[in-house]
């Protein structure tokens, strides 16, 4: 069974986690068109590659983001989604 690293609780077997879907930025619902919104809600990009994903560590109730390559199934990093990390990411860019 795969191991996943929870940013708060460390490396744990996958059975302790619940997958929360791909992390995607929603379009601005006030300005986007109906079809843009429908595409956001219903369409998923299945092409393999680096994805940001939501994961939930069940015993501790921790949501976090995992950056995973869906082709190699390698997780490059995991972190809490917070204002700080968002800013850090922005700065990193």
């Amino acid at each position, binding site marked *: 069974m795969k191991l996943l690293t929870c940013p708060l*609780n460390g490396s744990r077997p996958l*059975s*302790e986690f619940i997958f929360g879907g791909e992390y995607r930025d929603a379009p601005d619902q006030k300005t986007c068109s109906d079809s843009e919104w429908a595409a956001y809600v219903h369409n998923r990009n299945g092409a393999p590659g680096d994805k940001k994903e939501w994961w939930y*560590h069940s015993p501790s109730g921790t949501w976090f983001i995992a950056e995973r390559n869906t082709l190699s199934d390698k997780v490059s990093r995991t972190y809490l989604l917070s204002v700080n990390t968002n800013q850090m990411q922005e700065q990193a860019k």
Partner: protein
Amino acid sequence: MQALTPNKAVKLDAKISPAAPAQSGANVKWAVMNDMQIATAFASAEVEQARQKVLGVTDVSCFPRYGFKGPQAAQWAADHELAIPSSPNSWTLSDQKSLVLRLGGSEFLLEDQIGGIVCEKLSSISARVAGVYKVPRADAAFILNGSAALNLFAELCSLDLRPSALLANDVIMTQLAGISAIVIRQTHNGEPVYRIWCDGTYGAYMWETLIEIAVELGGGAVGLASYQQ
């Protein structure tokens, strides 16, 4: 925390340990401790002592508990002169007699050991403080001791809980027998013991599971009276 009074008659309206539905049996002796009916003995003292050497499981759900969390939780604890662990997912003793578990970074679980009074003191505080949220606790809580404790964990938990991996002050939030639980290792009378907490509504299931395996491994249920010896 009140002392255990085995001779005290069981009150009909007493709270009952959440594990109690799984603790029936003619030999079980009950007493009330901290307003909760708890099993003090499951067998003779000799039998229980023998079980403890191999694998004893004791229900300590009656120990008083207090929980709180929030961005200001650590500050609030300091304001109330609580010793808190400095790092997430670790534990310490406050006032020598009360366990303080830091669950993640900003949540705390306190438990008065025998003679501890911290939870009782905090329970009387009713004022709500910004950034501190009380977490009502209704845990089922157990103590495991004996030489075969790790053999039991080997079946219930996929994590490495040997002393080399579960350090002295580590708090582990993991899954035991498929449900969320908290595990730490403590020392009691110089022997390592393991503590388990889970949601009280899973208490009977957890007790059944622990006892089933403990019995197979040559141990079994131990009443609170033996544990206090």
